[in-house]
């Protein structure tokens, strides 16, 4: 899968996994951060990676993005050819226009047209010529989403993409991301520390703790996704438990 352009010929068997991580060990210096992580993501599957701050979520995501050259470790990582990354900061080039940022590195002759369409998709039609600093934080992050999706990724990696946004903007971004993912069908790994964000968006939630996968839970609409679904409370409590938060005690002291 990592070879050629990542597209399988019709004759080939449909792949069952887009991402495959085996025995991933990573550490900065002598201190281990990831101590043997195994993770599979199916094509089109939306996985949320939960974990307390500093547990190695970004380290794992950076390994998948191929950005961890300077980190020691072992294990195997298989990712598709077309991977897009959305960072917590929108990471727009301040010296390029909004459209220039979206089409950064695209070489096809219709790149501009595709960029315009991607901007329209995230609700920013008409802002093509603006400078990034002229946009609000939420708008900048939408440009970053357009930049990722215009490349038709097979895997979308997002590291706390809404972490810096206010609660209302964050909710709007959730529905936008759900729309976009449904339309483009990439596999997604969303890093977050927000349990509700994970439940609202993901098909599967993976909790990382002490450098290992501590818990995995499926999220199924109609069963445990909405607060009034029967399985919701159990799912919520087990996730908080895995994160080391005792909800009753948290409520008692609140």
């Amino acid at each position, binding site marked *: 899968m990592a070879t050629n352009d990542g597209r399988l010929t019709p004759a080939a068997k449909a792949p069952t996994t887009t991402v495959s991580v085996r025995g991933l060990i990573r550490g900065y210096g002598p201190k281990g951060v990831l101590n043997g992580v195994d993770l599979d993501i199916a094509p089109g599957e939306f996985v949320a990676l939960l974990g307390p701050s500093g547990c190695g979520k970004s380290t794992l995501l950076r390994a998948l993005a191929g950005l961890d050259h300077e980190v020691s470790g072992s294990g195997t990582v298989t990712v598709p050819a077309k991977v897009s990354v959305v960072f917590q900061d929108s990471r727009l080039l301040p010296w390029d226009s909004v459209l220039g940022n979206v089409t*950064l590195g695209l070489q096809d002759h219709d790149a501009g047209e595709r960029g315009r369409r991607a901007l329209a998709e995230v609700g920013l039609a008409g802002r093509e010529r603006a400078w990034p600093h002229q946009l609000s934080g939420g708008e900048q992050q939408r440009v970053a989403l357009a930049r990722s999706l215009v490349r038709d990724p097979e895997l979308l990696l997002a590291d706390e993409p809404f972490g810096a946004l206010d609660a209302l903007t964050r909710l709007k971004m959730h529905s936008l991301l759900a729309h976009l*993912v*449904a339309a483009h069908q990439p596999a997604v790994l969303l890093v977050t520390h927000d349990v509700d964000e994970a439940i609202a968006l993901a098909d599967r939630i993976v909790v990382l703790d002490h450098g290992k996968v501590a818990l995995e839970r499926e999220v199924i609409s109609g069963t445990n996704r909405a607060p009034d679904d029967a399985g919701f409370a159990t799912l919520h409590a087990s996730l908080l438990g895995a994160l080391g938060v005792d909800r009753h005690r948290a409520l008692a002291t609140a």
Partner: protein
Amino acid sequence: MTAAVLVRKLAYGEPGNSQRGTGGTPPGTADRRPLTRRLGPGPRRRFAALAGPALLLAAWCLASGTGLLDPRILSEPWTVVATASEQLASGKLQEHLGISAHRAALGLFFGIVLGVVLALTAGLSRIGEALVDGPVQIKRAIPSLALLPLLVLWFGIDETMKVLTITLGVFVPIYLQTHAGLRSIETKYVELAQTVRLSRLAFIKKVVLPGALPGFFLGLRFAVTGAWVSLVVVEQINSTSGIGYMMELARTYGQTNIIVLGLAVYGILGLLSDGAVQLLQRKALSWQRTMAG
């Protein structure tokens, strides 16, 4: 995963048609916001850059007019203006000015190209940095003036020597500031370039050059001033044309007015060229949001 389900579940995040008031300023209260930022230098005004030089000129006029300044030490401004019109009428000033400007432009051009190429070489590869940075720092420690005897020996006293001297003065600030600008480009942008799989060439074009542009312009302002300075030096030694030669000739005849005219021309040229660079800088860096605006 079905889109419909997710969308329905997330409908609370949709922008609703909420009821909003008219907003704005309540009737009867004037808009009392201060017009400028409280901290920072305030808004930009046209021709403000001329205020300082104009003040200097006024002081000169005042000192000469009241007799405080002896014309034998420094000519009066009006004498200089009269001299200028004489020299313009005879065509001499234009001729010298044209030759000087040509030398400065050539030296500036080669210096900019050399400085940028060296900065890119040093900034984009460790080998380049190891090879380039040391020699440039050494050159930086040697004033152009000190190199002049050697350059005269090598190239004689013709145009090559003059342009080369200017080039050697110009490329150093261009190199230093562009290199510094390049090194200050944050790694997060390099990471971004990697994730969108930019080619090396596209990386230089889209990230490195624009990111180094603020540094380059800073270097350019030093370089332009430096070009005029080098010009004075080369034109006052073994030259038969140019503003510097005109002044040197006037010195042997004791013509203070022409010397001061030459100084005034250098001053005006310096001011104009710096203004041009600043204008260019503001245009090219309009994406920046800085305190000066």
